[in-house]
């Protein structure tokens, strides 16, 4: 249908086609018969399309190894070791397409088979020592190495990453953070060696983001010295618990703690749910969450507790304890603060999710851009060769800004990891705000990027083996788990509100969260933006700060107006949601941009820095292109047009660097997909034969 329409509109296309077809047919007829009759002639591609590897036509203007070091930031050789480890094992499902090996799970397997394979892969990595020290080694170096491995594994498959994340970061993390020495001694080493398999039962059917509202109840029986955990109603069933359906032997249970009729709030307990051979324990009921739109290698389950008894020491007691005779003891008196302390492991999860989202975007872009450098469509004039997709300005406009966004996210992600690893009690607030903001923005960006990349690959993007389309389903969950994105962004705005009110009340300068710009005079946007101004990082920063500053003031004003009408602060926040959304976006864009500028500043002058400068400008310009700049009047209509024009210019300037920029992602070919390489050979008749 579509093709026909084109022919009607452009007679030259149909002439061209007829000519091409004749040429191909002639070639078929003239082709000499093969010398051996048993041989099927390999189709000649002479008159047909040729795949030309982009490596042969596109140069590298900068050192891609250096760029990769900057993007990955740390443990590059360790990542490569792990990539090789996965590529060399049959367990990782290597397949040859177009003469190259690709590794990716077989998503055509049943849910049960996928879970089985995910588990086998974990055992393989365990035996090779990949998880050594993940829970028993301390320090920055060990934590950063763990991040690097986790990121590398996540490039193979989301399910394996989540299985590891649940076991090490949620179950293991809960024991580390909420437990005390005897918990550490008892559980951490066995967890690291997978002698036990942990899961993390927080979410319930009736309560997800609102953890404080969960309905599971635990009481204490001082006669036996045991806690009694109970699921009182259907909405209290634990839901989405990764690992619960098949593999986990133990779980962290989040529950209200009721001592002598007083509810002390949410606490965490250890409960065994299966014995060593996999039978479900008495008084535990488990059901499967069923097939999902992605992550089918993860056995998400539901758990009901029927007055399950656990020993008193199974309360993770770093913030609160119950004495043998049943007295509640806590060093943190304020229940709000006590609750906040329980959410600490989720921060690690959010850091991981944010970083993982960036790597998925890298996969999508590397595939889509490599394809755009080898796929042609339509000739401008009859009998001219068809045009390479990436040579269309419209195609550049679709993909190159996403490349800039991904670079920006990479630098911001590296900052977030460092912030987390170097955490102190004083930096908790910053970590919470920044990890919430980056987790939400990166995962949203990732979904947008993957969708654009899928479409940019056309029909090929729909094939599961080409990864880019399938990754959408696999990573959609990222915007929901470990904190719903919208809720997280509301928390960012609320935190900024609190900063503003505190600064006003105490008449003190802003300090932290990158808000220091609020102490300076308000930046002014020139009435006529020239190309030079638009490329200047000072202007870019000013524009982003101006938006954040003004929206923060507007938000505070709006909330206080609601409050002036006698509404509660909570209600006022709910009513000011539009400003809250715009503000949290403004904060995130500015914070990310700042990290880009800082990364650029570490480099000596040279081609690498020049290219990064262009990417930085492009990232800033697509942020400034955001409708908020017009909505609130920060940009005139003319200036908004100038921004748009400049974007197309930077895109075309970055076009020659496209291959180098995606090669710098350092993702091994085997972790991309056939459409990123010789897609003609990968689909040839001879490939159908075996």
């Amino acid at each position: 249908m579509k093709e026909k329409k084109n022919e009607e509109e452009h007679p030259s296309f149909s002439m061209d086609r007829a000519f091409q077809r004749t040429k191909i047919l002639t070639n078929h007829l003239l082709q000499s018969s093969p010398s051996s009759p048993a041989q099927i002639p390999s189709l000649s591609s002479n008159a047909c399309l040729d795949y030309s590897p982009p490596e042969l036509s596109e140069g590298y203007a900068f050192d891609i190894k250096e760029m990769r070091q900057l993007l990955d930031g740390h443990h590059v050789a360790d990542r490569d070791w792990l990539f090789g480890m996965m590529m060399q094992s049959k367990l990782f499902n290597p397949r040859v397409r177009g003469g190259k090996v690709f590794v990716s799970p077989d998503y055509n397997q049943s849910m049960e088979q996928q879970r089985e394979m995910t588990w086998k892969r974990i055992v393989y990595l365990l035996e090779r020592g990949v998880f050594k020290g993940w829970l028993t080694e301390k320090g920055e170096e060990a934590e950063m190495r763990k991040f690097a491995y986790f990121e590398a594994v996540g490039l193979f498959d989301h399910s394996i990453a989540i299985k590891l994340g649940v076991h090490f970061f949620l179950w293991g993390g809960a024991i580390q953070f909420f437990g005390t020495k005897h918990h550490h001694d008892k559980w951490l080493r066995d967890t690291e060696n997978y002698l036990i398999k942990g899961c993390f039962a927080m979410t319930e059917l009736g309560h997800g983001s609102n953890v404080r509202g969960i309905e599971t109840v635990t009481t204490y029986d001082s006669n036996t010295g045991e806690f009694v955990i109970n699921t009182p109603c259907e909405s209290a069933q634990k839901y989405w618990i990764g690992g619960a359906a098949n593999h986990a032997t133990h779980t962290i249970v989040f529950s209200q703690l009721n001592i002598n009729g007083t509810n002390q709030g949410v606490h965490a307990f250890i409960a065994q749910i299966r014995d060593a051979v996999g039978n479900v324990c008495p008084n535990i009921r488990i059901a499967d969450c069923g097939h999902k739109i992605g992550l089918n290698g993860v056995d998400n389950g539901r758990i009901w507790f029927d007055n399950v008894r656990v020993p008193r020491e199974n309360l993770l007691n770093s913030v609160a304890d119950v004495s043998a005779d049943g007295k509640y003891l806590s060093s943190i008196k304020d229940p709000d603060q006590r609750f906040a302390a329980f959410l600490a492991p989720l921060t690690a999860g959010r850091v991981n999710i944010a970083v993982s989202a960036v790597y998925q975007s890298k996969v999508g872009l590397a595939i889509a851009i490599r394809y755009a450098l080898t796929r042609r469509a339509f000739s401008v004039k009859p009998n001219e060769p068809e045009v390479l997709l990436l040579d269309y300005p419209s195609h550049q406009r679709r993909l190159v800004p996403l490349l800039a966004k991904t670079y920006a996210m990479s630098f911001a992600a590296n900052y977030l990891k460092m912030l987390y690893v170097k955490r102190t009690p004083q930096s908790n607030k910053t970590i919470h705000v920044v990890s919430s903001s980056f987790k939400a923005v990166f995962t949203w960006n990732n979904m947008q990027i993957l969708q654009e990349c899928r479409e940019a690959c056309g029909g090929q993007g729909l094939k599961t083996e080409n990864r880019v389309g399938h990754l959408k389903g696999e990573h959609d969950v990222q915007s929901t788990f470990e904190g719903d994105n919208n809720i997280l962004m509301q928390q960012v705005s609320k935190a900024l509100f609190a900063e503003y009110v505190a600064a006003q009340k105490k008449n003190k300068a802003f300090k932290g969260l990158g808000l220091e710009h609020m102490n300076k005079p308000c930046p002014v946007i020139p009435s006529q933006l020239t190309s030079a101004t638009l490329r200047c990082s000072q202007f870019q920063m000013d524009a982003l700060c101006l938006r954040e500053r003004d929206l923060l003031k507007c938000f505070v004003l709006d909330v206080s107006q609601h409050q002036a009408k006698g509404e509660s602060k909570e209600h006022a926040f709910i009513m000011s949601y539009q400003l809250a959304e715009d503000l949290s976006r403004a904060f995130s864009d500015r914070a990310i941009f700042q990290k880009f500028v800082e990364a650029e500043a570490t480099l000596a002058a040279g081609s690498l820095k020049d290219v990064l400068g262009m990417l930085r400008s492009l990232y800033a310009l697509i942020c400034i292109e955001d409708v908020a700049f017009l909505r609130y009047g920060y940009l005139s209509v003319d200036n908004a047009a100038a921004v748009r024009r400049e974007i197309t210019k930077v895109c075309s300037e970055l076009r020659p660097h496209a291959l180098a920029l995606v090669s710098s992602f350092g993702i091994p070919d085997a972790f991309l997909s056939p459409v990123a390489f010789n897609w003609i050979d990968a689909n040839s008749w001879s490939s159908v034969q075996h």
Partner: protein
Amino acid sequence: MASSVSSQQDHQVLVEANSSARILSLNRPKQLNALSFQMISRLLELFLAYEEDPNVKLVILKGKGRAFCAGGDVAALVRDIRGDDWRAGAKFFLKEFTLNYLMAAYSKPQVSILNGIVMGGGAGASVHGRFRVATENSVFAMPETALGLFPDVGASYFLSRLPGFFGEYVGLTGSRLDGAEMLACGLATHFVPSAKLAMLEAALCIVDSSDPVIISSIIDQYCEQPSLKEQSVYKRLDVIDRCFSQKTVEEIISALERELVHKMDVWISTTIQTLKKASPTSLKISLRSIREGRLQGVGQCLVREYRMVCHVMRGEVSKDFFEGCRAILLDKDKNPKWEPSKLELVTDSRVDRYFSKMNTEEWEDLKLPTRSKHKLPLYAIAKL
């Protein structure tokens, strides 16, 4: 005078032009066909010319005497460098690696007849080509770590692509493989008994096609399926995978030692001995090179190896290569004194230096010959 020199050089590579095939014979049998600078230059010249010549459909490469090729002529090289001119060494490798790349990304099929020793540079001159025919006389090895060098000539590309972690094993230990093992692991594409080689050559000379499917079917007609010998290392792949997948050389050795705790095993203890005798620096840069090579195209591999080999020739980080050549090739006392002498003394930052650009004037990264002019076969495109 000039013509006699050139004719003498020409004798080092004999050329037979039979219809559409060209048979090139490496002809320094006394030196086991070790590649001299002249031979490499000549091969490069011939390969480039054949690519332009539409009458040439196929190139056959073989060796005179009992070797296919025992490697680069390292002894000659060391004599040159001893005169403090590491650049002469660099020049040699520049030429050699260029030839390796040309062979890997060649527009016409190369059939190498590996009827004898195939080591180091000999592997580089054959494994990159489309067809490698092993025989019962084949002996393959990458023995560089015993010499203070590392598996070069694009070995980080082809060793890393062997099954599991067999490439690490072959590259680090210099273990010798026979024809059956070469076929099993993929270093050879075919196994033909040497008695049938003459017939195979004759058949290839009349094939008049560059189609790899057709050429493969011709070779198939002379093929035999050899069986692995009882003691073959290829039957130890499980141990090799467990141990040689470890992240560092130290961990590989400890993993091998752990295997011995359960059960005494001569092959494992010999392997440990071999590793302990090799240059510690060589082992570490070799492992890193193979690991990086696994994720790189053949061009990137050669560019990286060229950086590495220039560092080795210059001898600023370590002089193990000269010591290795002294002990193995010149003085033949087989007792090299490595410096640093222990694995733990070879720090990561020392290793890093081999992978960095040379910070010296007039030095440039290896420039790969352009390949966009010729229509490359699919198997060559996949290597880029």
